């Protein structure tokens, strides 16, 4: 109980003092995770819609694979991206290991299946409803995709938020590919892991409280955006 009270105190103190270290960590966390979710959406929106609209040979297999990837353990993604970016690896010459770019890449891999699966689910329903009408009107399946995505934009916001939630909260992948380097690749979650290691339980918990606050802010912002685009 004492620890929790201390954590609440510390969290308030950190935020009230606009702690510059905390600020840098928060900005990095948001930058990495938001970029990753945007990149994952660039992949996931067309991929998810295509899975719903097109009929091709391995479609069922692809849908099963995407849904299975939802359960990818972050640390496995981290290891795969580590081997990809490590000097002897295929992308080794780029020297990206232990940089924020490496963390963005890992989180993109982690989040892309989530966005793809959720978009697939949403567009599939819309396709069932409007597909025949669209085809009868002479639209090609390819042309139908942007139309369906536009109709289903409210669920795209949900996909974006789910992806962001996964990215901002994970530690397993970014600690492997980022290395938790102070001032370079140290994010909210890796700081929490480090402070726990140091036995600074109250400070770790305080950072966790700040993280929840940030998630709330992002969720509230998205909710507002959703009200404008979805139901206006």
């Amino acid at each position: 109980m004492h620890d929790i009270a201390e954590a609440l105190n510390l969290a308030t103190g950190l935020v009230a003092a606009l702690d510059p270290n905390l600020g840098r960590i928060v900005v990095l966390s948001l930058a990495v995770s938001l970029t990753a979710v945007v990149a994952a959406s660039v992949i996931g929106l067309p991929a998810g819609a295509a899975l719903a609209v097109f009929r091709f040979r391995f479609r069922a297999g692809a849908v099963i694979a995407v849904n299975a990837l939802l359960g990818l353990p972050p640390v496995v993604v981290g290891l795969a991206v580590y081997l990809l970016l490590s000097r002897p690896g295929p992308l080794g010459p780029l020297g990206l290991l232990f940089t924020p770019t490496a963390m963005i890449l890992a989180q993109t891999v982690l989040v892309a299946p989530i966005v793809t699966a959720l978009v697939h689910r949403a567009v599939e329903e819309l396709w069932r409803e409007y597909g025949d009408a669209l085809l009868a009107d002479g639209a090609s399946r390819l042309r139908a995709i942007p139309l369906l995505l536009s109709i289903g934009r409210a669920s795209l916001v949900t996909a974006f938020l789910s992806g962001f939630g996964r990215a901002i909260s994970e530690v397993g992948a970014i600690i492997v590919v980022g290395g938790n380097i102070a001032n370079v690749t140290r994010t909210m979650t890796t700081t929490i892991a480090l402070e726990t290691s140091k036995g600074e339980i109250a400070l770790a918990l305080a950072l966790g409280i700040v993280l929840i606050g940030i998630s709330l802010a992002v969720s509230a912002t998205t909710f507002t955006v959703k009200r404008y685009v979805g139901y206006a």
Partner: protein
Amino acid sequence: MTSRRALAIRLAAFIILAALGSSTRLGVAAEPFIVVASTTSTEQSGLFQYLLPVFTRASGIKVRVVAVGTGQALKIGERGDCDVVFVHDEPSELKFIANGFGVDRREVMYNDFVLVGPESDPARVDGSHDIVAAFKKIAAAEAPFVSRGDDSGTDKAEKRLWAEAGIDVKASSGRWYRDTGSGMGPTLNTAAAMNAYTLSDRGTWLSFKNRQELKIVVEGDKRLFNQYGVMLVNPAKHPTVKRDLGLKFIDWLTSSEGQETIAAYKIDGNQLFFPNYRKPQS
């Protein structure tokens, strides 16, 4: 409706651009830097936080530390993913050099390991200065013991001590011997929660905050000596290694300024690391 949508789109675009912009700014570092693979003990004891800014002020070189166990740090060096390795396990360091992965190894500083355990001291080892005898007593009493189990320098030292005591801990794994496979801090957290014994480096112990019932029970045995060595990843093997910058860091650590800075780092008046670089006689 259109103006609202336009506003929303503009807002979304702004957020995305801001995120992209800030991430590229953070990714590109203008100043020269090196990547050092080191151990959790040097990072979590706060030594690097104290030491590195002094080096950066003197040299203009930033040091990016990846803090992992000694075993993993050497692996990162083997793959050429860092420039300098700064660890504490002499046998594996010498093997690393012998296999051609590293060059120019220098001994920088030492501290010692301590056996920490609960106040209640179920194995009755408190105050002893014989670590091997203490290990035998813990095994005989089957008192809970938490091991790093992560192939770190501390883990390797602990395994050597068990071997010296003639005890096969693998046979007791999962009973009184608990292998956590984690860093020093998490292992201490676990030991504190279970009222167990564990072997820790003194630096991490001194800076550790969540001690609960734990205290030092055995210290001062010369077998608990803990030497730290620094070496450059072999540039002949990995051309991407920043040889000159890396050597500047190694030279500074072993210079009188570097050695004095190490000695000056204290927590509550306790010195954590003792510089002991000796120039090779030639």
